[in-house]
């Protein structure tokens, strides 16, 4: 069996390499990236059970730790890999075994290439003596198969991301299950929501859900229409999250929820967000039924009462872009012309 204690040493080595942390992959344009990564801090918050939440500049990272090693959900930007690894090492010296990508966007996945290199696959570790060290090199990167399609350029029009960042282990059905660190881990696919390759990750014993961008607290729902996202799929995803949650009382406690961006949450927060998204969807749907054009819908301000919470006219996901995405994905099939239901 491979000596697992080499992983921390490798991590230290990685941190010492000046050029590595700055490796920037080409990829689909993503909003929200900080101008100066040097000033970004990675904050760590214990949620419950085995699961921690890392907050930096990209999507939140969930980290599950235990005797089997480290499982990460998403990997932020490569410029932050050194800081992320340092944060992980403060809570575990175990090897990074898995990185689960909730979707393909670079603010969640472009750190894959650095962080997977400091990990090792379990299968590779077990048989490394027979097959050589290469067999155990790198953590497994798990994602829905459409994430691989998007990151490799096989799906869509976005440029391919570096191959080192691609998923190494994809699934095509409704879910993929793991047993890791004494708990079941469910990776559940939600189709046509934020993108066409979304996964939420449910840590069953810790009772924590990592949602990726199927739920955020910092903006209106981000719907990547070009990558197959739809408002109704997004709402289905929120319902899926609600269905998994068991609160202690009322709407609080019990299952905790790590959003793709924003603060730690529980049932009440997801319900409020689902309420907002449903109400705005219903308003836009009603306007479409009345024959209103997109410009007329935007002028009617269907988000007006929620704008103090989620609205913005700057940045990559403006209120207008959200309304456009809702409108576009609610249009009847023949008017939209993309063949989707």
């Amino acid at each position, binding site marked *: 069996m491979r000596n697992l204690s080499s992983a921390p040493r490798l991590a230290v080595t990685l941190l010492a390499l000046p050029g590595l942390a700055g490796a920037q992959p080409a990829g689909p344009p993503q909003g929200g990236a900080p101008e100066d990564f040097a000033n970004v801090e990675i904050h760590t918050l214990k949620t419950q059970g085995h699961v921690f939440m890392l907050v930096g500049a990209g999507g939140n990272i969930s980290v599950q730790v235990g005797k089997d090693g480290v499982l990460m959900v998403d990997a932020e930007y490569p410029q932050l890999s050194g800081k992320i690894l340092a944060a992980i090492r403060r809570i575990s010296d175990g090897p990074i075994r898995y990185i689960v990508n909730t979707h393909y966007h670079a603010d969640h996945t472009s750190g894959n290439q650095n962080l997977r290199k400091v990990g090792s696959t379990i299968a590779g570790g077990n048989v490394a003596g027979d097959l050589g060290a290469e067999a155990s090199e790198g953590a497994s990167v798990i994602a829905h198969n459409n994430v691989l399609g998007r990151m490799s350029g096989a799906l869509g029009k976005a440029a391919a991301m570096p191959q080192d960042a691609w998923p190494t282990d994809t699934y095509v059905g409704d879910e993929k299950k793991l047993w890791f660190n004494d708990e079941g881990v469910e990776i559940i696919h939600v189709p046509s929501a934020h993108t066409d390759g979304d996964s939420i990750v449910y840590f069953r014993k810790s009772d924590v859900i990592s949602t990726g961008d199927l739920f955020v607290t910092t903006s209106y729902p981000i719907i990547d229409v070009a990558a197959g996202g739809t408002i109704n799929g997004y709402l289905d995803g929120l319902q899926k999250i609600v269905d998994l949650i068991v609160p202690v009382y009322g709407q609080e406690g019990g299952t905790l929820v790590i959003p793709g961006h924003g603060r730690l949450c529980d049932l*009440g*927060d997801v319900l*409020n967000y689902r309420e907002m998204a449903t109400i705005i969807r219903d*308003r836009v749907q009603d306007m479409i039924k009345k024959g209103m054009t997109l410009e007329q819908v935007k002028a009617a301000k269907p988000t007006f009462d929620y*704008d103090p919470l989620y609205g913005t006219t700057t940045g990559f996901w403006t209120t207008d872009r959200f309304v456009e995405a809702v409108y576009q994905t609610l249009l009847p099939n023949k008017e939209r012309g993309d063949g989707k239901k």
Partner: protein
Amino acid sequence: MDQVRQIKIARLPSLILAAALSSGATFAQVNLGGVWQNQLDEDFPDRLAGPELGDYAGLPINAADRLRGETWDASLLTLPEYQCRVHPADYASAFADIRIWEEYDRDTQNLVAIHLHHFAWGTERTIWMDGRPHPPEYALHTAMGFSTGKWEGDILTVTTDHLKEGWFRRNGLARSDRAVVTEHFIRHENGLTWVTVVNDPAYLVEPLYRSRDYVFSVAGQIAPYPCESVEEIIRPKEAIPHHLPGTNSFLKEYQAKHGIPEEAAMGGPETMYPEYRSKLAGAGAGPAK
């Protein structure tokens, strides 16, 4: 025994006495512990019967919050996941009796926290008195929020943040999760006045002030408050009851019933102040039809 030590020993009893006399003033000026009965003589219809639909008068809300209220459908409360939703910390003072108790460090006898149990939904708050910082913004928000307190003379002043979205009034006027609440607990013998000041950058134009009065109850007991959700209406689980803007026909009922002009019923900071009455009278505003 030298002279210096003799002086020190001679002073010791007085120092102990001084410390004993001052300890209460140092750590807690007033004892708030006990069961307090809620007095409903202020704002009764709003508090126990419950506010009427479309009554936003006297609340310093902005236009966005007004639309939240206008499009709110009370049927939302029939959804199973909403039935046991607790009243948030800044609204709970409206309803029922409370129990307050203090938590001291055994060794130092420093006041660590003041706890508050509220009858409605059995909610409990902890007001930290030990100077600990508030959590980072990315930490969990709750209905009770995170509270720290300090004594300002005999008044306990509490600052609460990390609140979940709640409501200013339980007829759909939302209070955002960005609100910061300042409270003052003022004991006057067997009376307690609980003042709540809500600052909400998302939905308020000015701070919202409320006061509630309680009377000390020597033999007070607080009953349990179990709540279990049931399916009241069969509907698709993704359905969210709400009114589309401009379609809520119930909004006019309050205005017609009480002869309140629509402008006043719709609230806003101006409607908080006494001079607003004279403005309405001068404008010749009559009740909505």
